[in-house]
């Protein structure tokens, strides 16, 4: 009797609910057959039941999850989202509520680092996002904003229109889909804040296609210049090329390279992601390099995933595997090679911020710190709650400005508490995100990419080149 009434209750309250679940009171697995409603996932690479079964529900992921930290709710935690995926596999429909919790995930992968059971949440959420993009109809405003983001970011020329003091004027040259979406209004304050804190926006120096090694050549590497990195932090690419050359690398910078597709990979835009991946592979294969070096954490993490992105493409699957294996973050490569160039002292206290896509997605934590510690005079501070995302998370801060601001402010407080003069990190998104929070709370601190600090040390530049710019 009780089960009957339980079933009735659930069905009355939520017509879309899976009747089997209510009937079974969710003890035990629910058979997949016989549901009249369409289940959340189709058969094309749904989140893997086997990977889901690795989760033992211990909860060790919770404290590192930004959304759990913000809201304290299970459904906005890694293990809760895995529960939702399991519900989907068992036939629950893809409701707006369910999608909302998948969308809320920043994809920071801190949970992957924290998980003692080795749950591959990264694979699970990416598979889920592809399904969401396929099956979920978003509200028009949301749809327009997302369209604008993907019409803007992977396109260097359009990004260029947002640079510098002329951006308002230049922005008028952007496509209508971008101008009408509200995206620029969300971006403007961040861009202004960043320009106040980051090294001055240099005149975009055009990188040569090849930079020769200084002294004995120890490696030939290709350099990904990236979209946001290339347009907003062009000095970072120049510094990367200089440092690599100083450390004995011939650096090849293929002209034809475009966007690596990171934002698409991380947001379930499968077709687009595949397109970008193929083009990137083509460009670097043509350059004939053994190693592809990346200085943007998000780009590096997605390029290391190309094997999964192109697994179903017979023409590219094998090439993607080889390519992915050749990708290195610049700090990884430098520590693998061992550094030889002389470091000049930099009397400065820096705080190193782990970019999620470097620390959690690529497991690169020790290398940047090792490189920074090699610089004489440099004092390295750790930031409290280092594992928690700053709220940037690719495009997440644009889609979720309020919680992103909370996370950014929390990160900024922890950064300020270190007393460091310069914040060092390896991702343009983090720099953009944290800069506005730092400025809002009035913290005067310089922002620099790890490679810029190394470059300054090798070239014997003064600390002031890394300091606050306002």
């Amino acid at each position, binding site marked *: *009797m*009780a*089960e*009957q*009434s*339980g079933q*009735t*209750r*659930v069905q009355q*309250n*939520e017509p879309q*609910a*899976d009747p089997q*679940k*209510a009937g079974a*009171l*969710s*003890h*035990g*697995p629910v058979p997949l057959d016989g549901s009249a409603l369409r289940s959340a996932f189709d058969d094309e690479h749904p989140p893997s*039941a086997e990977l889901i*079964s*690795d*989760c*033992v*529900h*211990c*909860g*060790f992921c*919770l*404290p590192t999850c930004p959304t759990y930290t913000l*809201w*304290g*709710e*299970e*459904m906005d*935690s890694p*293990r*809760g989202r895995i*529960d*939702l995926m399991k*519900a989907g596999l068992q036939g*629950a429909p893809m*409701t707006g*509520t*369910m999608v909302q*919790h998948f969308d809320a995930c920043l994809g920071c992968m801190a949970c992957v680092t924290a*998980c*003692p*059971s*080795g749950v591959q949440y990264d694979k699970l959420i990416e598979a889920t996002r592809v399904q969401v993009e396929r099956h979920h109809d978003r509200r028009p405003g949301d749809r327009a904003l997302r369209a604008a983001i993907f019409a803007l970011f992977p396109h260097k020329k359009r990004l260029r229109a947002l640079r510098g003091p002329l951006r308002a004027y230049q922005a008028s040259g952007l496509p209508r889909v971008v101008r009408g979406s509200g995206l620029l209004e969300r971006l403007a304050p961040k861009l202004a804040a960043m320009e106040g804190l980051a090294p001055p926006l240099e005149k975009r120096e055009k990188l040569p296609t090849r930079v020769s090694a200084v002294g004995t050549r120890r490696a030939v590497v290709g350099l990904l210049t990236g979209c946001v990195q290339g347009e907003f932090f062009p000095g970072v690419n120049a510094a990367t090329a200089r440092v690599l050359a100083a450390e004995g690398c011939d650096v090849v910078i293929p002209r034809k390279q475009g966007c690596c597709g990171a934002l698409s990979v991380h947001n379930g835009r499968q077709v687009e992601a595949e397109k970008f991946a193929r083009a990137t592979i083509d460009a670097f294969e043509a350059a004939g390099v053994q190693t592809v070096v990346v200085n943007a954490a998000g780009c590096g993490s997605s390029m290391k995933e190309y094997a999964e992105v192109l697994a179903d493409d017979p023409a590219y699957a094998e090439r993607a595997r080889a390519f992915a294996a050749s990708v290195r973050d610049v700090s990884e490569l430098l520590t693998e090679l061992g550094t030889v160039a002389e470091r000049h002292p930099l009397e400065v206290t820096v705080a190193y911020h782990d970019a999620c896509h470097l620390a959690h997605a690529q497991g690169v934590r020790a290398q940047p710190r090792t490189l920074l510690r090699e610089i004489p005079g440099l004092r390295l501070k750790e930031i409290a709650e280092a594992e928690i995302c700053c709220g940037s998370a690719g495009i997440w801060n644009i889609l979720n400005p309020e919680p992103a601001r909370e996370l950014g402010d929390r990160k900024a407080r922890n950064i300020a508490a270190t007393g460091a003069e310069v914040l060092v990190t390896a991702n343009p998104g983090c720099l953009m995100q944290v800069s506005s929070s730092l400025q809002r709370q009035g913290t005067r601190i310089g922002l620099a990419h790890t490679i810029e600090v190394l470059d300054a040390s090798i070239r014997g530049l003064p600390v002031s080149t890394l300091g606050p710019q306002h």
Partner: protein
Amino acid sequence: MSGTHGTETTAGPVEGHVPPEATSATGEAGDNSAGMAAVTRVARATLSPNGVIDDPTELRTYECDGLAHYRVTPALVALPETTEQLAAVVRACSEHRVPFVARGSGTGLSGGALPRADGVLIVTSRMRTIREIRREDQRAVVDPGVINLDVTRAATPEGYYYAPDPSSQQICSIGGNLAENSGGAHCLKYGFTSNHVLGAELVTPQGDIVQLGGLAPDAPGYDLLGTVVGSEGTLGIATTTTVRLVRLPEEVRTLLAGFRSTDEAGAATSAIISAGVLPAAIEMMDALAIEAAEAAVHCNYPAGAGAVLVIELDGASAEVEHEYAQVERFCTENGAFELRLATDPAERALIWKGRKSAFAAVGRISPDYIVQDGVIPRTALPEVLRAIAALSSSSGVRVANVFHAGDGNLHPLVLFDDARPGAGRAAEEVSGAILDLCISHGGAITGEHGVGVDKAAYMPKMFTDDDLDTMQMVRCAFDPDNISNPGKVFPTPRLCGEVPGKRKHAHPLVEAGLADAF
């Protein structure tokens, strides 16, 4: 018995996922839908808009705690932000006879926070304010959702820390610790949650807010706080809690010792304790557990070890120095082939990481497993370990051992593959037999994970009906309507109307006509 696992179950009765003896814990939806509706109305009126969850998809994420083997979807989840809000929900539950279950971070390993299908799950994860760090008083006052490790983080700048350290300390909440009387590796020297909780605001099952204990010790009257700690949420919900802070030791030495066998490691443990050394912790892991930890966190334990001991000494430097010399000697004398002293915090952390992630790490070497929690007198360790090994070889079920060797608290991890027919059943039997071993050696069926829903059926093996009846008198005093986490701890509820002490039978002398009763 906690599990991990594949689709849904881990271990446990293979057919039917909630064993018959546990069904009283789960409730059945719809018994009291009018009551439930009334409680929902109160919750909506009292809590913030996103503090009430009744969407079926969202409710599913609350269907189990850290023991995923038992799953029940609650009818409603309430996320109060204040004691008053929480009390209002409880009061409504009391008025309408709707059962409620409290939950902190949901990391418990005995299903203590398993929801009721006909009840409200009250989650304290939004009550996470550290109200005061009172250095002068050596106390902290914190809300129930505050994470255990965060208390230590907040106290460290003052030179203090919160001593109880369950393996899940990075996420488990103080409220949950209080309910379960959580232990941890360091309780060998420092004691359990009950030794460190000195005061708490309690929301009674009637929804009243009462203060038990506080900043000062020895509050006059019955030690209700001492009884509430470890009562697994059956006597109400503790909210703002006063805990003891312990001075950070002058010196900490963490030693990793590799042995060929658990017998040798056990003998070293005995030698240390017998010599009057009281380390902060003595932890043992056997070969299988080491393998799992290596796979998960690359803790770099001595290669080829049949067992390792993690021994931590802390206190005044001069004392630690002396004790360390003794410990080193006892380890070597008992066959340690490698001794490694952590020389910096990073090394110390890595040694502990191997130990603290061991439960979940076992998932790397076995698709499914049961985490057992039993206690034996420490001196019975070698004998019981041999008996466990015999059980394992006769049944063909692998058992990894991770435990608090210093106080005889065993955590055998019973490994199985649920995809193999009968494997779950066999693992379950081995797991149960281990508990029987603990009981027959004068031990306990749980040292720190709690009884919850998981072990309620084992309580009669450890306690007589009269023992259980007497315990439930306390339950009846606090919760006569049996709505506060019903079905946990006790296999059968006591009817609170049945007043004890009334003469059920005439005294034999009266019956024999030798005396008159008045």
